[in-house]
């Protein structure tokens, strides 16, 4: 467990918008860390996630671009139909490899690459969702010494994703959305 991570990764599926709307707008303008976010969205070319959260948040919200340097205080959303990966040189990259668990972007792919890049300096959060994506990735984060947080399944719009994550990572901290928001304000 690392109390002062260098980056946050978040994965969410069904019910993502409401869940992220509790967490991201709560972050102060002075928030120093980068957040990489995968939300399962349809593969159409245009997503309004970044615009939506840019309007709601004090931190910067953008759709991730290939080879973009990672900046603090910014939430990077995976674009529709691409995986988002973290490189060890402090940049992001995109990939159109096959979907994982029918998902592209995939939470597992983001989490695994971020675990590799940040090791113990990473905090990973699995939110609401109706599948198993994120569970394996969260296990990689834990194995690399990072911090695992999972939304309380009882409090989630769809409980399957947090339940799968807890099943693989029984030591993950289980929190309500409000508690996750409060936790992030203090990291």
């Amino acid at each position, binding site marked *: 467990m690392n109390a002062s991570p260098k980056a946050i990764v978040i994965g969410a599926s069904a019910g993502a918008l409401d869940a992220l709307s509790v967490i991201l707008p709560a972050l102060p303008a002075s928030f120093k860390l980068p957040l990489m976010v995968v939300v399962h969205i349809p593969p159409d070319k245009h997503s309004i996630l970044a615009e939506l959260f840019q309007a709601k948040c004090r931190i910067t919200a953008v759709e991730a671009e290939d080879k973009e340097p990672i900046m603090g205080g910014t939430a990077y959303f995976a674009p529709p139909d691409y995986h988002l*990966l973290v490189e060890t040189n*402090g940049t992001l*990259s995109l990939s159109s490899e096959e979907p994982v668990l029918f998902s592209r972007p995939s939470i597992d792919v983001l989490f695994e690459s971020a675990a590799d890049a940040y090791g113990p300096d990473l905090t990973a959060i699995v939110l609401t969702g109706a599948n198993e994506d994120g569970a394996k990735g969260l296990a990689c984060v834990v194995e690399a010494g990072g911090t695992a947080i999972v939304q309380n399944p009882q409090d989630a719009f769809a409980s399957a994703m947090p339940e799968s994550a807890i099943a693989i990572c029984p030591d993950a901290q289980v929190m309500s959305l409000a508690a996750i928001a409060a936790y992030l304000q203090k990291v």
Partner: protein
Amino acid sequence: MSAPEKVEDIEIRLLLEALYHQYHYDFRNYAMASVKRRLKQAREQLGFATISALQESVLHNPAMVPRLLGYLTVQVSEMFRDPSYFRAIREKVVPHLRTYPSLKVWVAGCSGGEELYSLVILFREEGLEERTLFYATDINQEALQIAEAGIYNLDRIQLFTENHRKSGGKSSLSDYYTAAYGRASFDKTLRQQVVFSDHSLVTDAVFAEMHLISCRNVMIYFDRPLQDRALGLFRESLARKGFLGLGAKESLRFSQHADAFNDFVREEKIYQRDGR
């Protein structure tokens, strides 16, 4: 990130060196996160305990190379992927191409041929096919063979058909293939004007002067310097005022060659080579 290099990272670096020195496949400047992921998959699925064991096998057994390349080269595409891109080629680029008596089109990193057939069908529908020579290149021989065969699983055809329609297709996709035994076999005549060839954007040079280069979702697997090399190749290959089409999330914005290209259809990542 300043921690000592992990053993597996060392092994991966050595494997990529081995692959280059022994077989001249150069993945050393690929975007590493994705390469690592796919090498780990290869290690698991090919049944090796370590990446080093995989490396030993690759060095001493050339038959392993195509199998490894199957993992290292991403082969996921679909016909008329991003229909709006093909619509823009049809509506905005084709009128310019019509003014040339003969045309050369390069599909760089053609993988299993989905993008190639999309363009050939589009050119046929627009009456340009007969005066066009298509070059379809890839580093992966097996992918080239798949492209040359033009046979796809029937379960993909519904998506292809839908994409073709959204791209402004002027015919029915079913005009171009025969379905049998769960497979769709695309018409041989679609390959009349196509040259399939082994070519690497990493190590090879320019081979002809092109009017249109389509290279979608290939360069995202490269690191920045390698992206610059590939774009330099495209710049040299393109005729003045020639066109370059990239993937929906690829951009020339950060490249040292950005000045040589102008936005042509900005939202579709279609660029035009300057007139110099």
